[in-house]
């Protein structure tokens, strides 16, 4: 299973059908609507297979038909610093830990 999660200091808001994400504190806010929101959810969500597999289940398309576009889009989100591979986070140095691990 290939899974992603928001990178450290990335804010994520799900509002109506759109997903709003931003590298904080500077932004900008990136709006993921329609299929883009579906891919984001599939990338960060639970489930077996690839991101394209999970996306295909939501848009009623064959996984192989959308795999290239989905992988390209996810790679773009990673390049923008919005997403990281979930297992990458697990081995990150302490200083790079996700600050969401909040301990009051």
């Amino acid at each position, binding site marked *: 299973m290939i899974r992603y999660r928001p990178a450290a200091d990335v804010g994520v*808001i799900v509002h109506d059908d759109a997903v*709003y994400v931003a590298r*904080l504190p*500077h932004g900008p*806010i990136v709006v*993921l609507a*329609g299929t*883009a929101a579906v*891919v984001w959810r599939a990338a960060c969500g639970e489930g077996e297979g690839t991101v394209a597999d999970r996306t295909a289940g939501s848009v009623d398309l064959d996984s192989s038909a959308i795999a290239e576009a989905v992988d390209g889009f996810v790679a773009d989100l990673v390049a923008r610093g919005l997403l990281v591979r979930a297992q990458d986070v697990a081995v990150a140095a302490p200083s790079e830990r996700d600050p*969401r691990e909040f301990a009051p």
Partner: protein
Amino acid sequence: MLAEVVERIPPGVRLEMSRAGVQVIADRVGARLLHIKGSMTDPVLLGPRFEGTDVDVMVDPAGIPSLHRALVAAGWQVYSAFRNNSSFEHAQTYFHPDWGYLDVHRRFPGIGIADDRAFEVLWTDRAEVRAAGLPCAVPALTAQAVLLTLNAARAGGMGDTAARVWDALDGPARRDCLALVERLDAAVAFAAAHGDLERYAHRREYLLWKVASRGGTRTEDWLGRVRASRTLRDRIGLVLRAPLVNTERLTHKLGRRPRPAEIVREFLTRSAQGAREVTRAAGDRFRQGPAPTEGAAAHSSAARSSPTDPRRQKRGEA
């Protein structure tokens, strides 16, 4: 596949993202802050639709300098400094063209104990909520109830806010609320929010809260500030500053930096207005005869107002 362009980001989304951004900035410089008011308010107290329009944070006073530097480095500009923001000089407002307004509170109006002690009291019992998925500290429910009530006191009660907050608390929570009011030395403002200020007519903060909760002239406001000051030095400083022009406010009013002549004109206008208010007040006193004693004034005003002290209300359980 590209992110689709949405013409307008919903204000609530922008506000929440702004709040999370401020939290990130604070985390990076180690400044402790509590998110207060607006959407960070527990819906138990004011309902789920209470969204707010700007970000409000209460900051550990020791962390304010580093937070200020970090905010400025991130593109936030000071819109209104502590000194010019209100009679209580409690918050500094920042503006960011992308993120909107931010109020950094160094104290909360109505709390009488020292700013650092007050922050520690609130911080110790903090709770956690999330903004844009990022963890943010907020005051505990009881503390939120106290802060909302104190905030309502400054705006003529903000409708029925104080009563709604009180009604939302059960018996033990009301007792905790009143205990916290005592601990924070916030009884005067708390009473003002509940329409029971006259019980505290003997306190030095009385006039300040009378003006804040019911309105008054600029001169009364300054007089209230002077009376409420703890030290002679503070009082002298306020008296000397009274006629000075708030150039930040004038800048916002004009939409540009004021010219020297405009500052002079504003100075003369303020001085003349202050003189008129003092003359009018003296005239009123002369026509009414000797001023009633504080106790008598308190008694007559109290008789006019409804007895809304939560401790005496029928619905009060504490």
